């Protein structure tokens, strides 16, 4: 199974999703002063969206810093987006920005802290995803 990394702001929605997922996951720190987690194996990123009405600033600054390291970026295999459909066209936009930028697939999208269905889908999906992420390289 691919590893997991995630970002969650102080509101904790994504952190609650990851906790319910029950899989080991590295948290990207909010504060610039804190060291980034060490990643040395392929992983999937779970990322919430903070866009304004025009879609600007969708990807959290800490996630940008995290992905600006080419070694980490090279290990990214897919992205799971969090957001809120109430934001219309910018729903889970951060996942789309990252997917386009890093040419990886958007594996799933969920709202706020996710539903039980989202948890089941992602758990099962990450199992299935194991192995697949290398076939296409």
């Amino acid at each position: 199974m691919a590893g997991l990394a995630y970002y969650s702001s102080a509101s904790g929605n994504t952190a609650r999703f990851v906790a319910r997922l029950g899989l080991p996951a590295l948290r990207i720190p909010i504060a610039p002063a804190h060291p980034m987690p060490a990643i040395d194996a392929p992983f999937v990123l779970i990322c919430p969206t903070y866009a304004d009405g025009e879609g600007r600033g969708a990807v959290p600054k800490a996630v940008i810093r995290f992905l600006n390291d080419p070694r980490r970026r090279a290990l990214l295999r897919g992205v799971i987006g969090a957001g809120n459909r109430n934001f219309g066209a910018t729903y889970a936009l951060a996942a789309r920005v990252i997917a386009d930028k890093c040419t990886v697939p958007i594996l799933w999208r969920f709202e706020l802290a996710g539903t039980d269905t989202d948890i089941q889908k992602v758990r099962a999906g990450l199992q299935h995803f194991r192995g697949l992420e290398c076939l296409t390289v």
Partner: protein
Amino acid sequence: MQTVARAINWNRLDDDKDLEVWNRLTVNFWLPEKVPLSNDVQSWGTLRPAERELTIRVFTGLTLLDTVQNIVGAPSLMPDAITPHEEAVLSNIAFMEAVHARSYSSIFSTLCLTKEVDEAFRWAEENPHLQAKARLILEEYKAGADPLKRKIASVFLESFLFYSGFYLPMYWSSRAKLTNTADLIRLIIRDEAVHGYYVGYKFQRGLERVGEARRAELKDFAFSLMFELYDIEQRYTAELYDGIGLTEDVKAFLHYNANKALQNLGYEALFPAQVCEVNPAILAALSPDSENHDFFSGSGSSYVIGKAVATEDEDWDF
């Protein structure tokens, strides 16, 4: 002892969330004049009289909730603010609620006859369900009421009670009717999402400062208030939507939004997945392309991992 008057310093933040939400709300600022509502005049003419009456009533009900939130709800949260920046954000929220309430009158003056609108405002004052939900919320907004329970009531209004109303313009929009009106409602929905998120976040910060027993009491309160409001909402929904046969469809939307309101407070869902299956046309009206393409269950061969490109901070700002 004299109290010192303090000036707000935005360069010294106690909580980064205050600035983040302030920036989001101010960038998202809008006025109803920005939306070409008059383009809906022709479409309005295609609605049957009962559908028009329903639409005016739904918007009047929404106006009432926005009025409550503008003049009572958001201002009542200010004395409980932990940071001065929180008070500033709440003043923005209060004003935007006034813009929302004002917007419905723009829709009315563009599309409807004065007589029809006056009737709907009378209806709103006399409707037992609408009055009951406003009363329940206003009880928690009273001076001297519990500050954390007040936040729960505010999140339920912002993230749950509006949705029996928001359903209808999304429904019309999914049938290519009143599409400009729907654009305006989407702006309101976007704002309310930030309001519910922010007040819910402040609620969770407040919970961190209290003990186990108090937390349990607040959680009990939140779930029982949700039950009470839901009970009223399903009656309100049936009264409005039975006539056009949409009650069950609206109820799925209510369950889905009740769960999201609880999540804004940091709580788990109340309604099980099988009663939260919102009509995909309504979800698409909220957010285009919001269906999950189930990548996981695909063959895995439909994509190719490309070569990663070099990126810099500024590349991501779009």
